[in-house]
């Protein structure tokens, strides 16, 4: 059983998770494993295969993690040799047979870079909304999920030239939560703090904890 770190430029892909008829990172990975004869068919995942998290269409990763039963010779370099240039394996770890890349993850971190020149951005408002969202809350208004919406989230915003950098970390994220958090911060930075507060559920709901 082996875990791999993957980096990819997500722009050419319709997200991580494989889908029929469109390019995905997972599809590229399974194609590579087929080319390397690790699996017989790209529609079948290797034994005990799991990925740490899904990324949306166009979203990149520097440390996506996948794990599966792999032959000893399958090093990051060997795996990269069959991957497209936009996806690279760069580290590995031999893990116990019971390891699960999704369920055993203790934290995940995402970074979004919002194009928000200082002259056009209310940094104070963006920081204020970020600080309100930081911590343990029920984020049901920012995800279509019905369960698992309460998360202890670490959220910070910093300025980097013409960009606001949004850093978010938690043990896990509900569907679409990271992207919607980024949208809320962006809206706040555009001077629509009231809209951002409403979107994040702070006015309408009292389920924050």
């Amino acid at each position, binding site marked *: 059983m082996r*875990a791999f*770190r993957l*980096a*990819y*430029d*997500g*722009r050419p892909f319709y997200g991580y998770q494989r889908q029929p008829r469109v390019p995905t990172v997972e599809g590229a990975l399974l194609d590579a494993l087929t080319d390397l004869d690790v699996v017989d068919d790209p529609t079948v995942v290797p034994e005990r295969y799991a990925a*740490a*998290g899904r*990324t949306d269409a*166009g*979203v*990149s*990763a*520097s*440390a*996506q*993690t996948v794990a599966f039963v792999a032959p000893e010779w399958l*090093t*990051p*370099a060997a795996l*990269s040799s069959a991957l497209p*240039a*936009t996806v*690279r*394996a*760069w*580290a*590995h*770890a031999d*893990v116990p047979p019971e*390891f699960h*890349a999704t369920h*055993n*993850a*203790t*934290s*995940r*971190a*995402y*970074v*979004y*870079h*919002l*194009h928000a020149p200082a002259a056009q951005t209310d940094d104070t408002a963006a920081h204020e909304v970020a600080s309100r969202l930081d911590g343990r809350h029920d984020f049901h208004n920012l995800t279509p999920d019905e369960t698992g919406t309460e998360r202890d989230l670490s959220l910070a915003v910093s300025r980097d030239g*013409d*960009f606001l950098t949004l850093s978010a*970390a938690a043990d896990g994220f509900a569907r679409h939560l990271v992207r919607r958090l980024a949208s809320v911060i962006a809206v706040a930075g555009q001077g629509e703090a009231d809209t951002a507060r409403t979107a994040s559920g702070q006015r309408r709901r009292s389920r924050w904890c």
Partner: protein
Amino acid sequence: MLTDVRYEDVSFIIDEAAAANARKALGARRVAASRADRALKSVLNGV
């Protein structure tokens, strides 16, 4: 961009040659600054 996933008791061995190859391969796609390219820059820095 997904920048980190952590596990207890798992230590990854970085393949320096593969990491360098990743920087080179992904870096070749770099163009003028934009949101996407800033994200790509972070990919490269994170590898």
